[in-house]
């Protein structure tokens, strides 16, 4: 595969993947990549999820990547399923079984395949086959769908389930599991179940009759997915907001965060209505723009609600002014940034970690925010809750830095766990508590953690009210332009950020099996491909490194120590400018020179080969230097 992976032929030629991969003629079990090329808007996603689920139900781990265009109908789309019983299911560049259903991309698709790739080719596209080094099964899909689906209108949808049946036979996926997956997929549309089952059966039947057994790749039943869930990160984030006690959620539609808001709307309607009155214990508002969405979040936070928005890069640009207001007036707020490729419109349907630096300092003036960085659906769930709590505790804006890869793809994940702590309401003084103190100063550091106390509007006490303003203020919230008030406030806010450093989710460390002076750091969706790369480097190259996964900014003491304890540390990021490296270097200059960067920013989810390739090159240049 080349084109849809965005790799030039030159890059392809230098791939170390081939070197590391096993010989092609040895049968491989539960280690393969399936890629289905269709055009978007044809309903292929249901078929692809059925295919994915049937493998999962056989107990074999998978990862899926849906590569789709910024378009509603008719452009090429690729759905990739990586099957790997070690659990290495991040993106992989090469494909073992390719399903070619799309006229528009078929010439380039076929030209880019590795020799020996299995191809399920729609007979109508047979003219596109211009090479003889592929193992091609030409399937008369049009004829088969005509037999199972008398309704011409539905054929375009149903044809997809036929390739599921074909692929099942080619790879050894049990047909009972395909049928069970169809039942699950169409649980809400019982009428579609039988039709789709017969389509899958027809594909399987044809394959049994026409395709000779192959011994290149196979899927065999295992017991490795028990208890796991298969869910999109955005859905898990939404569930986290619900369990985090969200009260006001304001949003403006933007790919790739819209599905988070839509999932939240569904979940809240089911679980967060008052069981007695049926009324809503929350407000979800589709705003007129991101400025308004963030304005509503800040207004709601001021009035005492747990409030959040979800957006992507262009959205945070628009929210920047209000982000500074939240920071400076110390109003709790949460932004879930499902990052996509920027700048500008960029690649709206491609993934990136390109908002890290912008989010960390979002707004004008001296501004630093707390960033939580989930790497999988379970953490997307947990960090939504944590963000809502931390925003209250710290009285500030907290970001959850998700990305398109996590948000919009289905991930195999450990199951969600119920929260163990009650909701954190932060330092809010009630009228009764105000009675017991002699003075309330909104912005005074009473406890030494730089977090002040606040009161909520409507508190019936003469000492409760204060005037919230983005303009300079003293510790009693009175307007002030005095140098000492301004500087004092900014210094306290900086100290509050240090408090945040002790409260954010801790980094996770995985030590190498052998002692090493080299460390590797990754965050978010770079975690899985980076760990895969390290595992492969250890086995194939006898190269070992300790690994740390960064889960939040500001970086914890443990993170800084990890860098201090290694001669050099490779920081893996999905952006061009080494954004988190820049933050770490600026805040911890003494470790600046130890950090090296591994960068990936072509819009594709990161793959282990990229990490390996860059690591080996950088390590070589280390060795050349004295």
């Amino acid at each position, binding site marked *: 595969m080349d084109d849809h992976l965005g790799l030039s032929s030159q890059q392809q030629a230098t791939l170390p993947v081939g070197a590391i991969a096993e010989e092609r003629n040895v049968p491989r079990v539960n280690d393969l990549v399936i890629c289905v090329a269709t055009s978007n808007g044809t309903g292929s996603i249901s078929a692809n999820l059925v295919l994915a689920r049937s493998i999962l139900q056989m107990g074999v781990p998978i990862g899926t990547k849906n590569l789709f265009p910024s378009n509603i109908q008719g452009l090429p789309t690729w759905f990739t399923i990586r099957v790997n019983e070690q659990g290495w299911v991040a993106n992989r560049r090469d494909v073992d079984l390719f399903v070619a259903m799309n006229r528009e991309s078929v010439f380039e698709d076929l030209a880019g395949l590795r020799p020996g790739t299995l191809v399920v080719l729609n007979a109508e596209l047979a003219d596109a086959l211009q090479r003889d080094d592929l193992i091609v099964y030409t399937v008369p899909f049009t004829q088969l769908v005509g037999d199972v689906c008398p309704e011409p209108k539905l054929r375009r949808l149903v044809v997809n389930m036929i390739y599921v049946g074909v692929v099942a036979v080619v790879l050894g996926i049990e047909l009972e599991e395909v049928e069970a997956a169809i039942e699950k997929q169409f649980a809400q549309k019982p009428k579609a179940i039988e039709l789709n089952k017969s389509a899958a059966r027809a594909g399987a039947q044809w394959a049994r009759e026409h395709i000779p057994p192959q011994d290149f790749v196979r899927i065999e039943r295992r017991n490795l997915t028990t*208890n796991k*869930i*298969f869910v999109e990160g955005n*859905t898990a984030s939404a*569930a986290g907001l*619900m*369990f985090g*006690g*969200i*009260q*006001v959620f*304001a949003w403006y539609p933007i790919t790739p965060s819209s599905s988070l808001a839509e999932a939240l709307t569904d979940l809240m309607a089911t679980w*967060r209505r*008052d069981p007695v*009155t*049926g*009324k*809503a*214990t*929350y*407000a979800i*508002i589709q705003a007129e*723009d991101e*400025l*308004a969405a963030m*304005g*509503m*979040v*800040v*207004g*709601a*936070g*001021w*009035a*005492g*609600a*747990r*409030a959040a928005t979800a957006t992507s890069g262009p959205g945070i640009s628009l929210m920047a*002014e*209000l982000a500074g*207001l939240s920071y400076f007036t110390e109003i709790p707020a949460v932004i879930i940034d499902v990052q996509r490729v920027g700048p500008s419109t960029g690649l709206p349907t491609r993934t990136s970690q390109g908002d890290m630096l912008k989010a960390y300092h979002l707004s004008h003036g001296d501004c630093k925010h707390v960033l939580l960085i989930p790497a999988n659906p379970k953490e997307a769930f947990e960090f939504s809750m944590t963000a809502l709590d931390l925003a209250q505790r710290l009285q500030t804006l907290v970001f959850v830095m998700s990305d398109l890869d996590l948000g919009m793809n289905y991930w195999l994940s450990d199951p*969600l766990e*119920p*929260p163990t702590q009650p*909701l954190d309401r932060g330092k809010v003084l009630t009228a009764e508590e105000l009675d017991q103190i002699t003075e309330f100063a909104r912005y005074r550091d009473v406890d030494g953690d730089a977090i002040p106390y606040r*009161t*909520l*509007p*409507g*508190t*019936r*006490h*003469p000492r*409760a*009210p204060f*005037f*919230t*303003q*983005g*303009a300079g203020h003293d510790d009693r919230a009175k307007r002030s332009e005095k140098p000492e008030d301004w500087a004092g406030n900014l210094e306290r806010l900086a100290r509050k950020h240090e408090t945040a450093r002790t409260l954010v989710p801790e980094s996770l460390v995985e030590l190498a099996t052998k002692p090493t002076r080299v460390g590797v750091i990754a965050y978010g969706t770079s975690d899985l491909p980076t760990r895969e790369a390290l595992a492969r480097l250890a086995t194939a190259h006898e190269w070992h490194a300790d690994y740390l996964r960064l889960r939040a900014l500001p970086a914890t003491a443990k993170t800084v120590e990890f860098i201090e304890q290694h001669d050099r540390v490779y920081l893996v990021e999905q952006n061009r400018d080494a954004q988190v490296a820049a933050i770490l270097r600026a805040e911890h200059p003494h470790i600046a020179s130890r950090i090296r960067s591994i960068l990936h920013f072509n819009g594709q989810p990161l793959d282990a080969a990229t990490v390996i390739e860059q690591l080996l090159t950088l390590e070589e240049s280390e060795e050349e230097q004295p």
Partner: protein
Amino acid sequence: MSTQQPAPTRSPATNRIGYEQNVYKGATSTLCAGCGHDSITAQLVRALWECNVDPYGIAKMSGIGCSSKTTAYFASLSHGFNGVHGRAAAIATGSFVANRKLLHVAVSGDGDTASIGLGNFLHMVRRNVPIVYVIENNGVYGLTKGQFSATADKGSTLKDGLRNDLEPVDCCALAIEMGCEYVARSFSGDVKQLVALLKGAIAHRGTAVIDVVSPCVTFNNHEGSTKSLKFAREHEEPLHEIGFVPYYEEIRVDYEPGTVQEIILHDGSRLVLKKLGNDYDPTSREAALVLLEQARREKHFITGLIYRAPEPSPAFDEQLELVETPLAHLPDEFLRPNPEVVEQLNQLWR
């Protein structure tokens, strides 16, 4: 032993919930002496007092600009929020859904409402968020020292002679277009009319927009300005004489039958409009828009209650079907589903 009676003292007037008018005052204004905004603040203080509003239960919202500073100058027992330029409407919307029991009063200027925040203003109106939304309209950016605002009339000039050739934005007409159900225009110097309109707005359930021409004494009070004191006084054309009658008071008898129109507000109180000359019916949306268009053409400055919907629509909190208790006051058990729901979701996603 003393048998002396304490000397009789004149107790200051209190409203029905026992507060003096002073309680509704705020910090001392730092605006220019004679600023129309201060006069509006004074009427707001009076209206809140006379409407027996809980002095702790007001949410004072504003954006950025001279007008926005005034939220510090009234209701000092309540919280105020001087946010970001143009975003008072959005911030107030969020605050309202978080605590719908607070009386939200937003004070904005023509820069906030008609320019940078026009979109947010219109969408707040569309949603019918219950807010008393006062526009202190002087046609000029005072705080940045005298640039035209979007409400500056065509042909008006700045101090330095620069002429505005653009059509003004009419916030009242736009509000009516967006479905606002209480739209009024007044003049900061018309104390009696303004207080009645403010009281009507406080009693209204839904977005109430009051556009108050408030001459800027420093940057927009010269001959070439159509929002100067002199111009306003000479061109003001009141629609009615307005009286506000709380629901528990009798209608005063001094209104002649046949010249009086009553408007019943959601809480049962009434706005009594005494017609002056014309037979304007403020319950017709079409008539209201025609009236504003005529006034624009004739360069007349119409004041009074321009539009009030005969049948109020559901306010934003009703549209959202919010629980009775303000969201911000809900205890944990309403905010977090049972732990078993986590397992149900896991099952769903297996």
